[in-house]
């Protein structure tokens, strides 16, 4: 006779279960169980993980669930077959959709309606009455369950050492005999080993928002809710052997396995009765004819045939059609999109219009990413304009219906910071101590807690209470905390989705999502498609629209002229402010060294400034080889085929994985597992195992240990920020397109960029300065000329002039702007006419602040004076009469200095086209021998210089230990500062607080790359204050404090 544990709560019953599903399964295997049920509360969220773990360990997982009902004792439900599983999932969906996110409202009636093919166990009550009887209401419920559910129904019994166990079992047994219900033994497992009780207590405290000292009876009195050995359970139930027997009976009856869930593609992807493959073939050739016109090269034709053949073999046609469908929709609506991912750079995708990367530019053979051996689903992420992605999402919902399409979940895990905060609070530490503790734990140290730093912060590490806090925090880290919504992953099915997986309400209105995340779906072989948002696409589309309107060019991502040397010339000079991807400080300083000359160089540029190659120390070898300073050699012939295109240096994720396969003898599946284990933290053991295997494998084949280590380090870097070549190629296209626009149409580019804010690294002020540097005339916001958006006006010279729009003005809403523009007619001549146009007074005041009344011959101060008097304008009956203010005499207002105007411009629009604030200080700066930034390039390297400017960006990349990169801006240009760790420690305050910063440092000139290595910093915020009148408040606040990037 055997025992099967049928009541197991994992940590996917959030803040209840204290063990991961994997831990429970592993323990079950150690104890000799052959099957295990997982019964989370009203949820299937953990069962896929448990299933995968069980499959790996060779035992059977019984997918099940605990139904907490609003009108009766809780029931455990076990589906016996596929249909019953579908019903259970539907039941949960019904409960979920009734409730807010995270809740599930179920009633007995719902259970009866969906009960076919399921086994049920009622949870025993917590206690007996004072006279040792079962509560009458409980008995009544059980009687009703028995009637409604018949012989599918069992009564559960537990032995939790509560003191009255024997009495309780006796009563339950009596009830069973009376109603003819079989009794089942349950373990009521919350954790895999008794030691986890402490964490479970803490979870209870977090859930109940109390501390361990005040929790009292909310906790369990003992540690008996662990997974017990089978013979121990049999001993505990020795008087009721039937109860043990019935566990086996249920386990045997429930043969349903998650493996039998079949994913079926939707049918409506094909037309005229074609099979998906036929449809795909038809569409591909149709697209091919359009893309390549008549002159399709033979090689392309051959590749298309190969790819289609491959797709047929893997049966992926429906997947491509699914993606094609919504991409087609987006194109029809004029929504810009671009695919990326392993399958996206196939010629098939190019023909279908999913990607615009010309396959002849990058020979990304898609079989290279998708071998027959590796049975992984294809991956196409499609980026859409961020402002219009919602349209695509709603299209998908509408086309397939909410019962067939849903967004994938993400499981939010507890990270170190949150974990220590929760645990420390539950352990009763003071808020102050909790804050200090979590402050010490930076998000960077996600896998361990740095004990030394705690000691430095004055924590006594010998204090057992604190040690316990740390110990429990380590256990708690990595726990699932809640289900979130994936950024854009969709699952679309032919049948009802809710029969596959319960659907829950998302926080966002009009959204529903699944309980499973992408790993769960992948494990079950469900295919998901990604509908993502990308700000740059919005910007590019706006630019295309402007090009059409003002230059009559019909640009698309595909028809922009390729390989234009002028564009590459611009890129090589790092003149890339605002363009996609290569605008960051690190990218900019790489560009003059790399000097990209063709599309593939851009692909490399995108991929090279990433944690992977930087941590793997691949960047400098590549640069040296490219510049001919180092010989290009390959450790072996096989490596040469992998690394030839990157001069023998592995830069892409795919290359590192291929090396693992070719040179270290990994199987493709192992290589993939390796990559994954890097991505999910808490798998340290795994990683070191792989490390050993990799280094041993490679040295065994005659590679140097150094090379092996570097490849491995690079893989580690990829783990968290995976950047494969296929993604880089898709991004590179957007890089090229944005550079092309910036190069030829700086006016259009600046407008589009400003209208797509917030986006990227730079502020409107810098975008405007950059545009003016490129010859664009920038005109101020004006009530008689501006629109809501920034716009282009008539040509001035070669380019159009940029007219700043009302969106730049703080506090002016789109409605007010619309009212203003709508009634503008031939122009406003008086302030009151704006009020007649229904522009709100507060908006008028903001417009006055922005100095937007110049065309009415009023400066901002006069305008504000007039506007503020509008409050008592004669209304209604008295309308049309003269206002009081007409009678008042002239009031002399103090004149504003140019400096004051600039300060006000910044306060209102975050930029000024009148002058740069630093220009007013130049005379004073000259006295201090401060050099304008434009003169740095004509100076000599190693000179000691002083520069001063407004901070625009501070960046502290995780890859550069302790170094801070600061960019400052003066009226002549930019200077790039490097602040080393020690200097930063000394001048931390100046660097972080200044808006205007003056530094002394050593000049470092390397070709076009100029850095100032900072030695000394001075905060000159006080000088900014002098720009406006001395009595003023802290005017420095109007200036942007600079953006901080990690």
């Amino acid at each position, binding site marked *: 006779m055997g025992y099967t544990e049928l009541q197991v709560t994992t940590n996917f019953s959030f803040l209840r279960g204290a063990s991961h599903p994997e831990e429970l399964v592993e323990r079950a295997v150690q104890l000799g169980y052959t099957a295990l049920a997982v019964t989370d509360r009203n949820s299937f969220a953990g069962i896929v993980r448990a299933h995968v773990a069980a499959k790996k360990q060779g035992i059977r997982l019984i997918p099940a669930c605990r139904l907490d009902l609003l009108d009766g004792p809780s029931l455990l439900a076990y589906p016996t077959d596929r249909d019953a599983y579908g019903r259970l999932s539907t039941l949960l969906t019904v409960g979920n959709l009734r409730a807010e996110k995270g809740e599930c409202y179920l009633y007995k009636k719902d259970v009866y309606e969906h009960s076919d093919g399921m086994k049920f166990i009622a949870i025993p009550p917590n206690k007996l009455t004072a006279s040792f009887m079962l509560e009458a209401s409980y008995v009544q419920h059980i009687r009703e369950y028995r009637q409604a559910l018949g012989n599918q129904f069992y009564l559960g019994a537990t032995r939790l050492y509560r003191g*009255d166990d024997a009495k309780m079992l006796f009563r339950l047994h009596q009830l069973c005999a009376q109603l003819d219900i079989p009794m089942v033994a349950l373990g009521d497992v919350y954790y895999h080993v008794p030691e986890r009780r402490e964490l479970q207590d803490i979870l209870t405290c977090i859930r109940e928002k109390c501390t361990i000292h005040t929790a009292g009876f909310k906790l369990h009195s003992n540690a008996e809710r662990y997974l017990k050995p089978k013979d121990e359970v049999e001993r505990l139930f020795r008087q009721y052997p039937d109860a043990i027997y019935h566990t086996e009976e249920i386990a045997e009856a429930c043969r349903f396995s998650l493996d039998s869930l079949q994913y079926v593609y939707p049918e409506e992807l094909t037309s005229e009765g074609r099979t998906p493959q036929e449809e795909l073939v038809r569409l591909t050739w149709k697209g091919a004819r359009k893309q390549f016109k008549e002159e399709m090269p033979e090689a392309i034709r051959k590749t298309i045939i190969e790819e289609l053949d491959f797709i047929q073999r893997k049966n992926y046609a429906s997947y491509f059609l699914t993606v094609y469908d919504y991409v087609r929709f987006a194109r029809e609506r004029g929504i810009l999109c671009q695919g990326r991912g392993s399958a996206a750079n196939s010629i098939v995708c190019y023909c279908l219009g999913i990607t615009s990367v010309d396959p002849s530019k990058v020979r990304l053979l898609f079989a290279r990413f998708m071998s027959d051996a590796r049975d992984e689903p294809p991956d196409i992420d499609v980026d859409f304009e961020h402002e219009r992605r919602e349209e695509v999402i709603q299209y998908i919902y509408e086309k397939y219906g909410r019962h067939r399409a849903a967004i994938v979940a993400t499981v939010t895990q507890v990270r170190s910071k949150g974990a220590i905060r929760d645990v420390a609070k539950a352990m009763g530490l003071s808020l102050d101590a909790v804050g200090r503790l979590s402050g010490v734990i930076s998000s960077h140290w996600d896998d361990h807690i740095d004990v030394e730093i705690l000691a430095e912060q004055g924590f006594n590490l010998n204090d057992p209470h604190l040690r316990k806090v740390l110990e429990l925090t380590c256990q708690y880290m990595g726990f699932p905390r809640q289900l979130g919504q994936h950024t854009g992953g969709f699952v679309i099915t032919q049948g009802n989705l809710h029969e596959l997986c319960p659907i829950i309400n998302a926080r966002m209105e009009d959204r529903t999502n699944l309980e499973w995340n992408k790993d769960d779906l992948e494990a079950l072989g469900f295919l998901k498609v990604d509908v993502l948002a990308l700000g740059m696409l919005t910007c590019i589309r706006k630019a295309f629209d402007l090009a059409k309107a003002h230059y009559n060019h019909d640009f698309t991502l595909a028809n922009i002229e390729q390989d234009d040397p002028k564009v590459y010339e611009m890129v090589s000079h790092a003149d890339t402010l605002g363009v996609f991807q290569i605008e960051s400080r690190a990218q900019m300083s790489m560009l003059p060294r790399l000097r990209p000359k063709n599309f593939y160089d851009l692909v490399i540029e995108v991929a090279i400034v990433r944690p992977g190659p930087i941590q793997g120390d691949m960047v400098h070898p590549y640069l040296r080889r490219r510049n001919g300073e180092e010989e290009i050699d390959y450790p072996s012939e096989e490596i040469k085929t992998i690394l030839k295109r990157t001069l023998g240096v592995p830069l892409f994720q795919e290359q590192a994985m291929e090396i693992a396969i070719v040179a270290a003898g990994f199987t493709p599946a192992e290589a993939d597992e390796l990559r994954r284990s890097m991505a999910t933290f808490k798998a340290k053991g795994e990683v070191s195992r792989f490390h050993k295997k990799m280094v041993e494998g490679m040295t065994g084949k005659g590679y140097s240990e150094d090379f092996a280590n570097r490849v491995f380090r690079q893989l580690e870097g990829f783990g968290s920020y995976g950047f494969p070549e296929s993604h880089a190629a898709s991004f590179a296209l957007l890089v090229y397109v944005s550079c092309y626009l910036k190069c030829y149409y700086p006016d259009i580019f600046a407008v589009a960029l400003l209208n797509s804010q917030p986006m990227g690294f730079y502020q409107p002020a810098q975008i405007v300065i950059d545009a003016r540097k490129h010859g664009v005339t920038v005109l101020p916001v004006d009530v008689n000329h501006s629109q809501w958006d920034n716009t282009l006006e008539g040509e001035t010279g070669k380019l159009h002039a940029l007219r700043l729009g009302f969106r730049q003005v703080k506090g002016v809403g789109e409605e007010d702007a619309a009212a203003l523009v709508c009634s503008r007619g031939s122009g406003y001549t008086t302030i009151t006419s704006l009020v007649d146009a229904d522009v709100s007074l507060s908006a008028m005041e903001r417009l006055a602040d922005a100095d937007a009344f110049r065309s009415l011959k009023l400066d901002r101060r006069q305008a504000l004076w007039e506007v503020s008097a509008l*409050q*008592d304008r004669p209304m209604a009956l008295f309308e049309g009469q003269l206002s009081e*203010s007409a009678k*008042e005499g002239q009031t002399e207002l103090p004149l504003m200095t140019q400096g004051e105007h600039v300060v006000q411009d910044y306060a209102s629009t975050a930029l000024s086209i009148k002058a740069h604030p630093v220009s007013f200080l130049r005379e004073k700066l000259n006295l201090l021998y401060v050099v304008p930034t434009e003169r740095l390039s004509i100076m000599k390297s190693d000179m000691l210089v002083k520069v001063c400017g407004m901070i625009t960006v501070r960046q502290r990349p995780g890859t550069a230990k302790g170094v801070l990169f600061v960019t400052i801006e003066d009226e002549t240009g930019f200077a790039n500062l490097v602040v080393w760790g020690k200097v930063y420690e000394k001048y*931390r*305050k100046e660097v972080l607080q200044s808006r205007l910063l003056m530094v002394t440092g050593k000049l470092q000139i390397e070709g076009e790359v100029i850095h100032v290595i900072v030695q000394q910093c001075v905060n000159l915020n006080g000088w900014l204050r002098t720009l406006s009148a001395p*009595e*003023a*408040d802290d005017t420095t606040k109007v200036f942007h404090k600079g953006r901080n990037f990690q």
Partner: protein
Amino acid sequence: MKRRFASIWFRHLITDWLTIRRPELSNKPFVVAAPLHGRMVISAANAIAEAQGINRGMVVADAKAFLPDLEVIDERPKLAEKLLKAIGRWCIRFTPIVAVDNPEGLLLDISGCTHLWGGEREYLKDIVNRLRSRGYDTRMAIADTVGTAWAVAHYGKATPIIASSCQLDALLKLPPIALRLEIDIVERLHKLGLKTVGSFAAIPRSVLRRRFGEGLLLRLGQACGWEEEFIQPLKPIVPYEERLPCLEPIRTDKGIEIALQRLLEALCKRLSGEGKGLREAALKCHRVDGKMVQIDIGTSRATANVTHIFKLFALRISQIEPALGIELFVLEAPKVEDADPVQEALWSNRTGLENMEVAELLDRLKSRDASCSIYRYLPDQHYWPERSVSVASSITEKPTIDWQADRPRPTRLLASPEPITVTAPIPDYPPLLFRYKGEVHIIKKADGPERIEREWWIDKGEHRDYYYVEDDKGQRYWLYRSGHYDDDQSSQWFLHGFFA
């Protein structure tokens, strides 16, 4: 008489107070912060932190970025108001009319007070010096109006004492914010370049009203004295204290009794008038020789019953040594609680703990013999039996939870469990017999085990398996085994209580 006002501004009220209480803070930067929209925002910073550029309104995380060793203290709600009230009461020694000026100041109506100090300058100096020596960074100004005093205290750069009728002159150079204006009006004035009071004071009132509303004119008028402004004075608190000076020194017990009786009657009258009752009282007897002797009593519930309190004191009167005689009796009630007088009338009908006689008996027992300890226990939320009860603080305290009825607990629980020897089958069956104090008990009936685990956050050790057993004589016991049976050593058994 011309009215004169003083405004006191505590520039670092909260942080000064914290520094006074925790001197170790005095030379390092620290801030007080409270959560706002999910972020910790600084609500006060001490002078050192301010010098480093940390201001209120800043997010703690930002401040910590450039000052990592910045100490952050959680804000206590309403603290500033409480402090101001306390300091305000202390200020009553300077003038009877003191008002709290939230959030960080006081207003004093000093009309006719300053001559006692020898003039306004000395008066001001005395207050500021005293407050500064206590640790408060203080600025103070005196003028004819509240508004001007406030403005000069906060923003004045020249003299803090504004001569009578010179308000406007003093204000002209100050920024508009010194007029206590709303922030958006201040901003608008600033944008218009009207950066001092003087820059707009001459503009016609109608023009100002149209643009800045009535508020600006009101504040300007108040500061200049054209408009009346009222302040709401603090009421001083009177302690529960009665004094009885004697014409002749009292030397006899009888005399003391009479004095006590009188004092009690006066005090209890006041107490019941305010719906209060005392929990503690002290009789202080000041003797002719300059010494003071004192007797204290405590009650189990708040009471204003003269007879009862008198009885409690009466038991102690013999302890008073009058020596050459007592010239002053002071009766104080340091601990006073709300008491419902209606309830008092009904007490006699109540039973158990509600019965006043029980409470009074307890008081008398306690007051007769200080070492006599009578405790009342209430259930506490702990599974661990030793911690499952706690001592009640008063006779009327209600238990916060019910006594647990679903788990059997003995009527008498031993303070420390006593070891016993048992014969018991393994692994977790109840014993067949046990030996306690030399006597063997054969167990007839048993239930259990109830496993109670240590409260791991308090102590470490073995769990206990409790059994509820009945011996052949029908007596029932609560036994436990400490820990599991191990292979090498037999487990220890204990007796922990007796059932009725």
